[in-house]
């Protein structure tokens, strides 16, 4: 997975956490800045791949950035006008890459979407949603916070079904995931679409190779389950794992 690449445009308080975490998760992070201050700060924080260029100059962007289709372009500039402009420039230069942008108001969100951002995250909206959820669904919010945070044992994980897995041709309904201490939330049937399907939407689906399961569980259980999935058949579970299961 080391080949995943993300370009972070802008280095400020707004993006330090993101940059750090992406690097932790083996992303190849390239920081793009236009000012010397930000360049120095990024350098000081130990980043090596830093490019300083004039972001209003399309030629510079095209020549100096080695962007591939699967790369993520993350626009987190502090100036929202500039962020919109940059999104538009990137969309015209690299139309197939996914642009993710940070916004700080409803109007900016709209403009970023119009400029072609694939996903826009509104700084205040997500926090407002968080407050709203703390008030209305405190337990659900706590669970999701735990799932998203790397510091807790509970997490949500994508598990691909490999070619020879014992899960091949098994109906979702017939398989008891809770036996493994995990809960299946939904899946993506890559053959049909990239759309995520919730388990509760009444799936009558036979699992097969290439499907991706989305499960919640304790990290240990998820690790163990991932190992089972890749084994050829259910009998392939080692004795030791089976003991742990019981």
């Amino acid at each position, binding site marked *: 997975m080391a080949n995943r690449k*993300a370009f972070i445009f802008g280095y400020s*308080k*707004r*993006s330090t*956490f*993101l940059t750090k*975490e*992406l690097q932790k*998760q083996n*992303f190849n992070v390239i920081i793009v800045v236009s000012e010397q201050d930000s360049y120095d700060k990024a350098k000081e924080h130990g980043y090596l791949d830093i490019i300083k260029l004039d972001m209003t100059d399309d030629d510079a962007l095209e020549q100096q950035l080695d962007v591939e289709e699967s790369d*993520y372009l*993350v626009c*987190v500039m502090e100036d929202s006008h500039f962020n919109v402009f940059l999104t538009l420039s990137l969309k015209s230069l690299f139309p197939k890459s996914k642009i*993710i942008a*940070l916004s*700080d*108001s*409803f109007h900016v969100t709209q403009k970023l979407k119009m400029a072609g951002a694939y*996903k826009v*995250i*509104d*700084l*205040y*909206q*997500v*926090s*407002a*949603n*968080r*407050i*709203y*959820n*703390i*008030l209305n*669904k405190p*337990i*659900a*919010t*706590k*669970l*999701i916070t735990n*799932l*998203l*945070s790397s510091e807790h044992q509970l997490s*949500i994980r*994508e598990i691909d079904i490999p070619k020879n897995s014992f899960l091949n041709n098994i109906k979702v309904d017939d398989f008891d995931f809770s036996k493994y*201490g*995990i*809960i299946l*939330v939904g899946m*993506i049937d890559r053959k049909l679409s990239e759309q*995520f399907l*919730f*388990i*509760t*939407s*009444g799936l009558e689906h036979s699992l097969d190779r290439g499907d*991706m399961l*989305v499960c919640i*569980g304790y990290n240990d259980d998820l690790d163990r389950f991932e190992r089972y999935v890749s084994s050829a058949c259910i009998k392939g579970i080692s004795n030791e794992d089976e003991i742990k299961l019981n």
Partner: protein
Amino acid sequence: MFTKLILKIAFFLHRSKRYRDTKKLFYNFLQNPDYIYKRYFDSFMIFLILVSVIILVYEVEHQIPQWVDDFDLYAVTAIFSLEYILRFWVYNDFHTKIVKDYEEAKFLNKPFRVLSPIITTIKGKIEYILSPSAIVDLLAILPAYRPLRVLRIFVLFRVFKLLRYTKSIHQFIEVLATKRFELITLLFLLIFIVTTAGIAIYVFEQRTNPNINSLFDAIYWALVTISSVGYGDISPITPAGRVVSMIIIVSGIAMISFVTSVIVSAFSEKLNELKENRIVERINKNREFLIICGYGQMTRMFLKNHSLHSYEYVILEDDKKKVERGIKDGYNIINENASRHDVIAKFNIEYSNITLLALTGSDINNIYITLNAKALSKKINVIARASNDKIVKKFKLAGVDHVILPSMVANRMLLFAITQPAMYKAIYSMLTGQTLAQLDEISTIMHYKLVGKSIEEIDFKKHKLLFIGFQCGLKEEFIFNPPTKIDFRVGDILLVMGHKASIKYFKEQYGEIYYG
């Protein structure tokens, strides 16, 4: 011996929780504006007063049935008398003062005189009896004395009693009181002009004008003229009298416009304050509400979501321009500084569940607001916004229950959108319920049929729901994916995921509110 007996009674009352609670309850109903149920008592009293006045008016031309007369005579009067006695009782305490004085005397090693606290308390009671509202209350009871027909007119004092129960009339008087100086000056000016003009016309016309027989007639004429009413029953007939008329008419116009402008300016000065007080009073009547401090991007975003649900809220904002914008946007906003003690103290902290959202842009303000609220009551639930993770510790120390870091929350979502794009959508919709599936909490208190049932028995799969886990009511501990044999108890909260319609149907099936 007497002192001993008094002390014994005083200590008995002082220690009796039942006595204190009863007195507190009556105090709440009669005097405590923050008490949620006081409004029911007030409405009931207003109803009685109106009934009483309607009976008075109806009785002038019609014969009223005996039972109506009895109701007016016995029931209404009895209730008013009881109210008067109760107010007299709750006004102050004999026993508190006696106990306090006794303990003080014991501490200082000086002789205790039982009469002194009794006299102080009696003075307090007399003070109550002589207060205008108590006099009105007493006069309102008088119409019950039938032999004196004239006393029936005292029913009108019952109308004055309305002052006690209706805030708006009370506020009107309060606003006028702010212009006391101007109004008193005008009153003296009026008395001066009316008296002077009255004497003048009396001197000029007493002998010639058949309608002016006394100084009272002359002053009556002057007042009728200056007020621009001019009945015409008395009018000047001599040139000198007409000159006095002209002067009095001109000064009358000036005076009326002056009085009007004084009253209008008093109201325009107090209008915002009155409106804000109304907002505070209205919100205080709720069992649960939000106080949002600061009107910025985040508050607006929050209210956009929030408007879908029925939480009551009030926004406190220091900056006048922002307040104006908030009013334009149609929100309940008042121009107050949330870091001031008296501002938060205005809210019904004792009886309502308050959640305070400290969402101003400054960490210092948010911490100060939190401390201010927590100093008033630990019960207030505080959610505060912080600018960076280094300051979170300080927020926690200040007593914030939930700290929100906008940049961190957004960063996490960004990270999630990049690293696990498929699940990003899942998580997002689980929380917001924007697409088909949502994550919801089902409480066994509200859905009592769940109590005693096991996960196996409920069969979530049949209901097309995914059971994630539950929070154990007693321990407040979340149990993820529990064994299917576990039974639910009262107070447990179940976490399920599913289609909105499935959750709604499930809640309906298990959803009778548990009143036990």
